[in-house]
């Protein structure tokens, strides 16, 4: 299997501030796109207390990150293979304790992850919404931070707040913005331009544009079918943009 070769993976954290903006759908589909392009991808469900990568992919999960934290179980045994180049590390759902890992537990998770990630080219982390400890920790552990937002004022504010916390308290400076659910290409450009202007003015940060995902009924349809829209509707607008985003990630 390709994923057995030792690699130096690129660790990418996908966060949003606000919930329900499409983090998991984006993560699952961009991971699928990267694997289709020959890259070995690990998708970690970073929403440790309310996981749903497994739901979006229709997986029957037997073991999760929780067993590693609580029982010291080998993390590799929890991996679920989606295709030969795409594996998922699922998390637990409905376990409040997992949403607030202690520093010792974070250190244990870090060392366990470091043992498995060198099999992959890309490690994507789909975090929880909000600015909780685990969200901030995953973001600081990663090499690249993607922030997903929609044109809604609530999403803009929460995405900005997340970036502000990561910048002010954790010295993160490079953020890639992915604007989701845009009605037109221009709306995506306007939202990015506005967010970019506010970040530059108040935080002295220049964000990078990763893409603008168009509103597409195939996205919600795919979630209900528990299958990536990239596979269910490969010619859809959303799929074409996801492929473009995957190309940009590879080019970075």
């Amino acid at each position, binding site marked *: 299997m390709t994923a057995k070769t030792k690699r130096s993976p690129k660790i990418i954290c996908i966060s949003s501030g606000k919930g329900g903006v499409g983090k998991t759908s984006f993560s699952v589909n961009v991971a699928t796109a990267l694997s289709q392009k020959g890259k070995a991808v690990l998708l970690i469900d970073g929403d440790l207390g309310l996981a749903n990568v497994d739901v979006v992919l229709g997986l029957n999960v037997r073991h999760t990150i929780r067993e590693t934290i609580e029982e*010291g179980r080998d993390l590799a045994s929890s991996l679920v293979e989606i295709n030969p180049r795409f594996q998922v590390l699922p998390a637990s759902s409905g376990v409040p304790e997992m949403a*607030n890992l*202690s*520093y*010792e537990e974070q*250190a*244990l998770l*870090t*060392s366990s992850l*470091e043992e498995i990630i060198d099999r992959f080219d890309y490690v994507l982390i789909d975090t929880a919404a909000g600015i*909780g*400890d685990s969200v901030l920790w995953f973001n600081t552990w990663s090499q690249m931070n993607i922030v997903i937002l929609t*044109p809604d*004022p609530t999403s*803009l*504010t929460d995405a*900005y*707040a997340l970036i*502000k*916390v990561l910048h*002010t*308290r*954790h010295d993160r400076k490079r953020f890639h913005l992915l604007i989701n659910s845009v*009605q*037109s290409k*221009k*709306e995506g450009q*306007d*939202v990015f*331009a*506005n*967010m970019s*202007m*506010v970040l530059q*003015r*108040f935080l002295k940060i220049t964000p990078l544009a990763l893409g603008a995902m168009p509103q597409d009924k195939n996205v919600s349809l795919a979630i209900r079918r528990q299958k990536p829209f990239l596979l269910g509707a490969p010619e859809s607008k959303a799929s074409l943009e996801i492929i473009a985003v995957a190309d940009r990630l590879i080019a970075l």
Partner: protein
Amino acid sequence: MNRKAPSDTALLYRSLEEQAAPHPVRAIRLTGKGAEPLGLLLIDNTVSEAEVASALAALRFPDQTRPATLGQAEEKLPDQAWFRRQLAVEMDRVQQSKLPCALLLITLSGQDAGPGALAEPMAAALAPCLHSGDLLSGFQKNGLALIMPGAAVGKARRRAEELRTALRTAAFLKDTTGVAPNLALGIAVCHAYETIPADRFLALAEAELARAAKMGNDAICQRAAANVEDSCQVTVEERAQLWMQPRKTSRTAEMAA
């Protein structure tokens, strides 16, 4: 380790830490959740954070609560002067270890007791809930101060709730008659990215304690010790900038359509 006075082991570790301070090493105290400090790791300070974190992660200790050895007659609860010294030491350690530190202040009012008469029974009631590394001392007339090294806001809040439950069900409160006692718990938390003096940190916890006392109902109030200039709150100006442009753009786009 006994809560009321540092144990011999703790004093030995402190002495070793002081001796190590002038040298190019980091001293990391290994405190599991057992009854005693488990060791002191002296490590070359050129070793990367990641390697240290990885080494520490391999050293996991069983999750145990501390045995209830508190409140024994031969021990005395450390006073405020001791507490202030320890607070200063722990604040320095936050910078060194990059781990947060929480300070919890607890007071009890509405009890017909003389100054200092309640601190000892309160400390005894809390004993089973204390973790190794916790530093408990007297505070004001009938209060306690608990320094919780390594605790961030979430953990400090959970532990405060646990301690509040222990106090509410304590025998010495059940035996009383008359006015119902009121607990107040105030928490302040500091992180390595905040450089604040111990006095300011204590003042923040006191402010939260005062807020909790005012709220009544055994309230717990908390805040992180971020300076105003470090605050991450999204300001009115930032919100205005964030919201205005997309709305206008959306309307313009709609009109154009």
